[in-house]
């Protein structure tokens, strides 16, 4: 055999960027920028040192958490937040189903597709806090503004993911239902819905989870709920009550996250 006599062919992994000069320019450029960025970060170490005991005092003020003296406000805030979370998730999903179906390229006619994609991108282009500031100005302080904010944000999230799931579906299953002479709605119900349902239930629960967390943030800018209660307690320097609220929020987030994770595993 002559194979042993042949020189071994060397192999190395091809580089991510083929052109050597571009690779080096990008690498050096990034390194230079980072160095400059760190170099120009202005940290006043003296002030940091002075601030440390104040920070420690601030943290100390949180302990022990005071659940009692503001309990009524806390209960009211939590129930408002839960109302906001559930109602906005339900309403948001209800609106996003037709929008999401319309935004699926493989089943919607072109004009409908562009309108629905437009709705989705408008809804997705603003962060919840920005939307909340806008809707609080529009509807006044209180949970209604928070509800509108979260519903609006849910449409963008859920509609986009629904549309993408429909675009990824198995076309032959849907085609088979169409071939039986089904009407459009029957086709959606029998051919499309079963294919996207498990993921959509999972995403609905996930969105419920997100909406609960966001509702606390939305409250801080005037959207009502536990966020408003939290903000008030900070404004009054009642850090022990604030600590209680934060602990309750953490507990509920953990509860929602754990149970939605469990339910999602169950529907898969």
């Amino acid at each position, binding site marked *: 055999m002559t194979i042993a006599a042949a020189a071994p062919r060397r192999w190395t992994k091809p580089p991510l960027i083929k052109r050597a000069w571009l690779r080096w320019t990008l690498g050096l450029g990034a390194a230079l920028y980072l160095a400059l960025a760190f170099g120009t970060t202005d940290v006043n170490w003296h002030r940091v040192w002075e601030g440390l005991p104040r920070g420690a005092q601030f943290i100390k003020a949180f302990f022990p958490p005071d659940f009692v003296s503001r309990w009524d406000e806390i209960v009211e805030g939590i129930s408002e937040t839960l109302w906001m979370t559930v109602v906005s998730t339900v309403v948001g999903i209800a609106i996003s189903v037709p929008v999401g179906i319309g935004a699926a390229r493989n089943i919607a006619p072109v004009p409908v597709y562009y309108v629905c994609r437009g709705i989705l991108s408008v809804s997705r282009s603003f962060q919840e806090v920005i939307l909340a500031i806008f809707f609080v100005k529009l509807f006044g302080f209180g949970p209604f503004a928070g509800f509108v904010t979260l519903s609006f944000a849910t449409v963008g999230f859920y509609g986009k993911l629904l549309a993408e799931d429909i675009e990824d579906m198995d*076309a032959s299953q849907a*085609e*088979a239902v169409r071939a*039986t*002479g089904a009407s459009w*709605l029957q086709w959606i119900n*029998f*051919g499309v819905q079963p*294919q996207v349902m498990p993921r959509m239930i999972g995403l609905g629960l996930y969105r419920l989870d997100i909406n609960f967390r966001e509702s606390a943030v939305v409250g801080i800018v005037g959207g009502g709920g536990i966020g408003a209660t939290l903000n008030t307690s900070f404004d009054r320097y009642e850090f022990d009550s604030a600590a209680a609220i934060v602990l309750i929020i953490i507990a509920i987030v953990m509860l929602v996250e754990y149970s939605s994770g469990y339910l999602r595993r169950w529907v898969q």
Partner: protein
Amino acid sequence: MLRIRGLIKRYRAGDLALNGIDLDVPDGQVMALIGPSGAGKSTVIRCINRLVEPTAGTIALNDSVITGLGASELRRARRRMGMIFQEYALVERLTVMENVLSGRLGYVGFWQSWLRKFPQSDIDEAFRLLQRVGLDHMADKRADELSGGQRQRVGICRALIQNPELLLVDEPTASLDPKTSRQIMRLIKELCAERKLSAIINIHDVMLAQMFAERIVGLKLGEVVYDGPPDGLTAEVLTSIYGEEDWSATIRKADESDEAPADNVVPFEASLPSRDRLAGLT
């Protein structure tokens, strides 16, 4: 009686899939459509129930012209044509029963179907059909729990519960083993005989086509190049359809029984991805 005249299909990309097909399928005839991949077999079938819109030509089923029907008339026309798919195309997350009953969607209203409140007669018929194919004990299983052969039998039930006048069968055996393929083809043939149904069966497997069809139509590049009895498939004919190849193992000997040994089956590109054949579904 299905009558196809001058059927032309040109896809938007510009390629000509069908170039003037003329075909008559009398009542009760089981016809096999053979030809290489890309010859237009799937397109013919999908033009008949207009899952693919024909570019030109007319198609008529029992004197009602299908080309040119409006949306609701097309739905009524589709009820009369049962379709059986390669890779079964069952809705995997629905139960076997729901899949069979989906064949009645053209007959029931939206709310009825949405609430799964199908008429008792439909449910009786569904159970009867499932029993006929030996699957009535599986009614509440999810479709994706079944084996390939079982799924295809559910697919057959879905097509038959439409009470069709014509069966359109697209590669029914492409993903089945040789034995199950034969069982499925025999089942389709028997059911067609029981119900005096005519059928168009797209099939890659020439041996199976010869075994179970009474008429063979060979398609090449969107044109009919052979139309005749199974025995007329000589080496020259197969070469004209598929191109040069040694056909001696494929051609059925006159004295050979229907049950040829399984290892003689010639797998013509049987493993092509399904999407390639779903012509026009972009």
